């Protein structure tokens, strides 16, 4: 690891998870003989998450937030940049190496859709036992861990659930099984990708509370990926707002949400309604248009075609990331001192 990350001063070097100038592109071949083209899903993202800390990664669909999460736990390989986990550079390690350093046991993921993330032919018992078998945990300890995990996600008494199959459970219960599976190997780092967006409002809070309790009890590093900032508010320490695969704004969660600086961040936050009958009497001031195609993104700042403050330079040159307020970093020409 380098001594300092001079080009990304918001990255803390002693953190458990560090991404430095990460880029993950997908390749598409438009035709048999055509030149392959790239979808720049994650384009120059740097971040760090320490133990006991939750980072919310917020953006719209196509912003690259899911690709970023999957790259960090090495379900995808980046084309450039580095990922450090507990001080080790894991960017280019192969599966065997990742296993030998315990990486696969120490990271895990909760997916969005509890209807498709659990195998319908496996019992809850097997769903939870499988990761333990893979990591070579002896039988007696496995049983103990399964019970503990079910209790932790408040599927109690565990005996009532252990022999059931996913179709016998409600959406909220399935998502709790998915969380139990994610924590059963005692990971240090969890990526939760929209864990409550498929659930009804009255169950969401319960799932969020469970996640928050687990994260704090085990002091995990936690990455909460969402398009909905209001659910992130309840347990996030920091926020990274992404637009079209790129960094938009990063800082302490409450600070950023209260006073967002990037014009995209301002729009994103303005767009979210709180329940208030006065909402109906006014229009929301949000940016027009929709996110760009990532095969051929706009030149300069990718937000400039929608930005109400777009200047000449925004069209020509990509903005640098600057510290606009202590601890708050923004990739926007408005805040560059020239």
């Amino acid at each position, binding site marked *: 690891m380098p001594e300092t990350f001079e080009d990304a001063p918001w990255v803390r070097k002693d953190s458990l998870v560090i991404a430095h100038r990460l880029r993950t592109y997908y390749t598409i071949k438009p035709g048999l003989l055509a030149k392959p083209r790239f979808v720049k899903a994650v384009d120059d993202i740097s971040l760090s998450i320490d133990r006991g800390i939750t980072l919310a990664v917020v953006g719209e669909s196509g912003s690259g937030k899911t690709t970023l999460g999957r790259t960090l736990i090495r379900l995808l390989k980046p084309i450039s940049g580095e990922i450090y986990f507990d001080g080790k550079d894991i960017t280019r390690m192969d599966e065997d190496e990742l296993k030998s350093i315990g990486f696969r046991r120490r990271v895990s993921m909760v997916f969005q859709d509890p209807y498709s993330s659990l195998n319908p032919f496996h019992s809850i018992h097997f769903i939870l036992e499988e990761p333990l078998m893979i990591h070579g945990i002896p039988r007696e300890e496995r049983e103990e861990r399964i019970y503990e995990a079910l209790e932790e996600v408040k599927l109690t008494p565990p005996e009532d659930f252990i022999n059931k199959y996913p179709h016998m459970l409600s959406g909220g219960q399935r998502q709790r099984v998915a969380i139990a599976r994610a924590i059963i190997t005692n990971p240090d780092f969890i990526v939760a990708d929209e864990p409550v967006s498929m659930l009804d409002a*009255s*169950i969401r809070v319960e799932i969020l509370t469970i996640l928050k309790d687990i994260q704090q009890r085990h002091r995990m590093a936690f990455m909460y990926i969402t398009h909905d900032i209001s659910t992130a508010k309840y347990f996030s320490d920091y926020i990274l707002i992404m637009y079209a695969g790129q960094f938009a704004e990063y800082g302490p969660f409450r600070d950023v949400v209260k006073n967002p600086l990037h014009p995209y961040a301002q729009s994103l936050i303005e*767009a979210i309604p709180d*329940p208030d009958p006065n909402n109906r009497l006014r229009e929301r001031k*949000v940016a027009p248009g929709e996110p760009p195609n990532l095969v051929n993104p706009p030149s300069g700042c990718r937000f400039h075609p929608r930005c109400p403050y777009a200047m000449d330079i925004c069209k020509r040159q990509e903005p640098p990331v600057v510290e606009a307020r202590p601890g708050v970093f923004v990739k926007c020409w408005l805040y560059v001192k020239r």
Partner: protein
Amino acid sequence: MIAMALLEVHNAKLYYLTTKGIVKAVDDVSFELNEGETLAIVGESGSGKSTLAKLLVRVWERNVTLVDGEVILDGKEVLHISEEEFRREIRWKKIAMVPQASMNALNPVIKIGDQMIEPLLLQGTGRDEALKMAMDALEAVGLPRDIVNRYPHQLSGGMKQRVIIAMSIMAHPKIVILDEPTSALDVITQANIMNLLKKLKWEFKLSYIFITHDLALASELADSVAIMYAGKLVEIGGAEDIYGNPSHPYTQGLISSVPTLRVDKTLSFIPGEVPSLINPPPGCRFHPRCPFYKDRDYLRGLCDAKEPPMIELKGNASRRHLVACWLYK
């Protein structure tokens, strides 16, 4: 004398027949809607809110076993008239709908214009006139008129949703039913669509029935709010009353589970799950999850046995505040 409401729904019922039994998706629901008013119907999945919308425009699935009650639109009963008459005179012209996820149901091989005018042609409008109506509507939703010559794949998600909204208003209906009109859209696109819906409402004095699971989003449009739970209407009133003084324990639970970005509050949740509509709990359908029923002995034998009546509360809004709960008897 009280002016007659634009839409009156009396004791509406719609049951489905499935292999597991009869699903009472809408069970004895009554409400009214005034001219220019927006009523949000809020409930979780399985509350019957979408079925209620389908009942109002009379597009229901084949396995329906019972449709009952009265729907009085502009002084005329329309639930029991012939389908032919409803199609010619009522649907699209008086009451139109933006069905859930319908932007993904646009036919990929037919031009936008041709898809839009199909219902108008079936009603006997001439092709040129229908096309003009479609282009006027597209302009009203902020799209260029020549979109009629494009195909759906050439449009973004937000633009497709605008096309669907244009379709719903092109025959100048008085009521538009919006069934989760922003559910597949991104946050900012959603806000832009809500802005458009507000603008259309003010411009054309539309009445909306806005079906959603999201109480925060409902407040973007709603003059009044109706809360549905397990096929029943449990509370209805002006937006100020429902948000300011939620009275049904379910409404209270729902509101306190909505995360808020700008104000800090402690979130709570309603334990348990929405009941099955095949064999719903007796009495008040919410009683197994109700915190008051658990705490107060005098409610035993009442909530779990007898269906609560609609009770009028003192409200601050222009609309009556009604709640179906034994606590207020």
